[in-house]
């Protein structure tokens, strides 16, 4: 499961981040293995997602969101 498939408001835990590239940028902003996330908004027409990490809201483009594999908590 990746964060693109979540329901709005669903809380999940990050399993792993696939593929290289933005891994480090995601890590810096707090999205890493074991981090807890919540989906806040999904913009239409394949627009960005807004995700809550800790007490911060982070907007992610779909292509990068696809790489974040999660499991339900």
């Amino acid at each position, binding site marked *: 499961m990746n964060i693109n498939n979540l329901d709005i408001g669903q809380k999940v835990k990050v399993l792993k981040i696939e593929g*290289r*590239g*933005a*891994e*480090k*940028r*995601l*890590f*810096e*902003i*707090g999205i*890493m293995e*074991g981090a807890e996330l919540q989906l*806040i*908004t*999904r*913009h*239409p*027409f*394949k*627009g*960005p997602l*807004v995700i809550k*990490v*800790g*007490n*911060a*809201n*982070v*907007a*992610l*483009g779909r*292509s*990068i969101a696809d790489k974040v594999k999660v499991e339900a908590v």
Partner: protein
Amino acid sequence: MKIIAIGNPNVGKSAVLNRLTGSQIFVSNYAGTSVETCKTKMIIAGREFYIYDTPGVYSIFSVADEARVVRELLEEEQADIILNIVDASNLERNLVLTNELLTLGKPLIILLNQIDMVRSLGMNIDVKLLAQRLGCLVIPFSATSGEGFFEFIKTMEEYIGPKNISKTDHNDKNRKTYTINLNSEHNCSGNCFRCSDHTGDCMSEADLQRAEEARRTSKMVSKRVSARQKMRLDKIERIYDRPVLGSFLLLIIAYLGFYTLLKFIDLSEGPINMLLHPLGLFIETFIENILPVGWLSSIFAKAIPEGLIIPFTIIMPAMLVVGFFMAILEDTGLLPRYSVALERVGSLFGFSGQGIIPLAIGFGCRTPAIVASRIMPNQAQRFIVVTLLSIVIPCSATLGVLAAVIAAFNASLPVIIGTMLLVFAILSSILSRLIPREEYIYELPPLRVPLISNVINKTNMRFTGFFTEVLPLLLVMNIGIRMLMDSGALEYFRGMDGFSRALFGIPAEALVAVLITIFQRYLAPIVLINLPLTSREATIAIAMIALSLPCLPAIVMTIRELGLKNLVKIIAMGLATSFTVGFLLNLLLP
């Protein structure tokens, strides 16, 4: 004594320094406000402390520009203390950076900023335990309320006094210190910039350990003590989080902004003109009295009063309204929400959604818009936006004058607008092909109630440029243009007439007007209006002017923000665009 303030983006570094030192650094509620370092001074117990404000970084080992700036500052300036400014309401992530700073082996003081936010979230942070775990001083602080100010002063007094914190804390057993060489290879501790980051896209073992440590510490010291206060802002934030409704509200706000701008210019024009008229007459008589009668006197007497009109009636109100509106959008945290809502639209043109913000501001005035382009995620994307701003987007002053000239010559409005839209689409898609797009990752700030003092302060700081840069520049230019026209110098360009007519279908003087846009785009139409042009010639000339070079204030700003090299590229593209447009329109128009 040198102190370097370091922290994540948008934690309140600038606000803290303003509070501590009384400096007036720009404070805005979104990540990426400041890209330069800035030095402030405060005197404690008779000693001078220099505190450096730095751009926000998530990690000092990051490949981002901001982190490079911070590393360079750490290497260049032998800092006595590092002041780590932490957003207490988002402790875990902030502590990752703290853990990095701890390994630098320099005296470290932690300002736990936004402690007021922590309380309204119903949380409590055990400051003593945190200090113990990190092995350094932790001071709870709030830049908005001033809480913690005296404790900071006291700490500093102790630091320079007999009881030295670098002695007591630095050797704390709990604290692991490594000597990190930020860039050099000597004395490598296995923990330096090179070891931490080889390729820029993967994490080292040390990175993961620091993150794990931050998670543990944050869990240990934070406790929920009461229910989260239901703030009105929370509710509003949730509305803006709704994708359709939120975007709709953002559009309404933008529309209201433009409407206010136009209405304000419209309403203020009468009264301003009423004040300007006697002033103009006074200046005219004054000049005629002090200068001997002749060519110079008549030029100045005419050009100066004339040159006051457009700056005061159009540009001054535009700068005020746009400045105020921008300040509100920035301080509430709405500005970055546009970027998210419009990400899709932007990507059609090849830039991230953030690009819409500076482009929209450009319709007011390009100079603040170029500053606002800082919201773009990287330099390459900024370059696209600034290029589009410089070449295509007409500012309010340009729009007004273009409309007047179009009406005067009965030029074809659909042709001109169509050409501009087409150039925008073509130019942006070419640029985005050349420049790789990055993945979209952007931290949204919480919505906040703007501080009135901050809004006024910012509007004011942005407006001072009107009297010191814009007005003098425009006056001088206007005098120059008047001289050029009255002296008959334009006649000399007659020689180019054949060339100009063959290529672009316009007379040589009109071509000169196009070249004048480099100084100030709205001055070019003033030249045109004095020429006998047909409707077809006017259409081509106006289209060439509308799609040409940035004006002088924009040029100055571009050099400051992007450097001379990029400016040269933009100017070359502007000239190429303008000439191509003229050439093609001449071929295509009947």
